[in-house]
């Protein structure tokens, strides 16, 4: 199995995106990580541990699932890839497991990471507890206040939770805090990337670990006799998006659609559509598309789906969009909420608001297609974490 780096034009670069824009002290740490991952990936023993945990701990493989009633009339069939049916953090667990195993293999006794929606935190805390690694998680105050069950779960898994009161008090500030922590402790502590974001080799490592989604989906679609016209995924950190797309990127006939958060949708209001409206910049370690003003200051982002509200994008995805292989769509808060609610009531499946964006986009795409065509929607996690936003008691 090649790593996702084989898709990169040069090591650490996807087209002109990517690289290692970090404090120089981190360069040797990244170099060691790069080598260690390559060695681990070539080692059947690592794959054995990884696959065992992917099955026992994460709950893979996850099924695909065709909706029945949720489908506009005379529109395409909608098939969900159900990573909501994984444990402890949705698809984030895919990469947390691999990175924690790698940390153990490298002789590190601790991991640190950041979390926005709480899922990467829960995933990493659970795996770290399981592998006996110390674990520190940073989370912005605003996110923590909105996701109190996640906060408690992280603490129950024995992790140290650092609540970040700085900057946007959300994911971006948490990431900065986690990287600072790592900089000070890189001899003993691995940084666990929640997304294929940041300096090389993180985008490659995470995309390689998440590629399991695309491999499974591809086989399952073949098994079901379905040839998809389009695959849609909402882009937060991009881990599920690249995970899914990686299985289909070499089929030029299949459309790959990255769905971004449009926020409230009101003119001028903040959003998180950086693949569509962002500019080339350098953020959190990589050259990529970012939402920034003309002085390079990051713009505030907003979305009802906390996991989508991030100003940077995965360099690999930035390259796929710039090169035209991936197209983008923007879905606003209201459309996503409505899609999640209708799917729950109509199918008994509760997906997260992030996936709601992809679902709403799939309805739009599906209306342009014939009823026998198939569109696949990535469901990165369950909607349990969003219940308070989805249903307010009167």
């Amino acid at each position, binding site marked *: 199995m090649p790593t996702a780096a084989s898709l990169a034009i040069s090591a650490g670069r996807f087209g002109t995106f990517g690289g290692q824009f970090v404090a*120089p002290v981190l360069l040797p740490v990244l170099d060691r990580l790069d080598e260690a991952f390559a060695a681990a990936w070539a080692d059947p023993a690592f794959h054995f541990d990884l696959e065992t945990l992917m099955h026992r701990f994460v709950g893979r493989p996850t099924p695909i699932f065709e909706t029945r009633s949720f489908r506009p009339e005379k529109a395409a069939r909608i098939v969900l890839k159900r990573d909501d049916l994984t444990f402890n953090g949705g698809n984030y667990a895919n990469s947390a497991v691999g990175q924690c195993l790698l940390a153990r293999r490298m002789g590190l006794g601790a991991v640190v990471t950041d979390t926005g929606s709480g899922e990467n935190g829960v995933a990493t805390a659970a795996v770290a507890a399981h592998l006996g690694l110390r674990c520190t998680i940073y989370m912005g105050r605003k996110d923590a206040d909105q996701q109190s069950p996640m906060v408690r779960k992280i603490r129950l898994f024995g992790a140290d939770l650092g609540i970040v009161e700085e900057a946007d008090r959300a994911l971006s500030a948490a*990431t900065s805090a986690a990287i600072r922590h790592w900089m*000070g402790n890189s001899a003993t502590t691995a940084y666990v990337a929640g997304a294929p974001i940041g300096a090389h080799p993180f985008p490659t490592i995470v995309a390689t670990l998440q590629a399991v989604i695309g491999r499974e989906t591809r086989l399952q679609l073949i098994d079901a006799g379905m040839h998809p016209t389009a695959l849609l995924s909402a882009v937060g950190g991009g881990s599920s998006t690249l995970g899914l797309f990686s299985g289909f990127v070499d089929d030029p006939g299949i459309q790959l659609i990255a769905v971004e958060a449009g926020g409230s949708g009101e003119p001028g209001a903040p959003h998180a559509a950086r693949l569509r409206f962002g500019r080339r*910049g350098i953020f959190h370690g990589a050259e990529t598309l970012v939402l920034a003003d003309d002085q*390079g200051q990051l713009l505030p982002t907003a979305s009802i789906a906390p996991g989508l509200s991030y100003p940077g994008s995965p360099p690999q995805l930035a390259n796929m969009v710039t090169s035209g292989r991936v197209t983008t769509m923007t879905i606003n808060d209201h459309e996503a909420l409505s899609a999640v609610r209708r799917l729950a009531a109509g199918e008994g499946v509760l997906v997260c608001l992030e996936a709601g964006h992809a679902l709403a986009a799939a309805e739009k795409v599906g209306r342009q297609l014939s009823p026998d065509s198939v569109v696949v929607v990535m469901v990165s996690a369950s909607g349990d974490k969003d219940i308070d936003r989805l249903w307010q008691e009167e």
Partner: protein
Amino acid sequence: MENPAPALPNRIDAMFVRLRAEGRKAFVTYTVAADPTFDASLAMLHEFVSAGIDLIELGYPFSDPILDGATIQKANRRALAAGGNLQRTLDLCKAFRRHDSTTPVVLMGYANPLAVMGYERFAERAADAGVDGIIAGDFPIREASPLLAALDRHGLVMIPMAAPSLSPADYAVDKPGIGGFLYCIPVVGPTGGPSASTDAIVQAVERCRQHSRLPVMVGFGVKTPDMAAGVASVADGVIVATALIDQFDRLRASELRGTAFDDAVRANVQAFRQAIDRPWRGA
């Protein structure tokens, strides 16, 4: 357009020539442009020079100063609130140059504002503003080719950063656009963190000298005049940021205003200056 021509092709090199002749070490500080306002910042730059600072690192404010500790994060936020950004920082340097054409000014900050402005445009404007070099915390040399080329075209240099764990290939690079001095960071971790031991500093400086012919300045975690004196005894210069900014923060929070405030700032800077100039008697 009034653009005071630099006294020498490079003010940084000139500074080291002068200091070496005087048998002294360089004293460098860091301040965020427009913290707390553009005018206060301009006054502070001149104050620094008159209090004995040799080179100024002028931070261009950034919304996400990922490598910095709490003190400098706060300074960034104050500067942003006052309208600070990369362009205003260039404006500040240009204003400074009206009355000071010799003190070297090195910009310090993060990669994104440079990338968004464009390296060529940035280098052109920076040269025009009288900037001498650039330190970008998240811009290692292995990524810097396009930036170095632009800097070189406009007579600016990037200051390489060295750390004990770094391979020489990551800092001791002889390439157009690299120069000024070697920024030796003897500790890991963000700014404002713990200090390195004297031994560690000595070793770090020695390693730098082994691999590079650039002057070596030590920064990150220099907290007291005594420590600065120790560093000065082995390096070509000492960089003090967080410790002085913390002191200025405290002064701003006090009752002191006007000349009383200026005097206090000067006293703080001079305490370091005198320690650095003092013959070293060991720790």
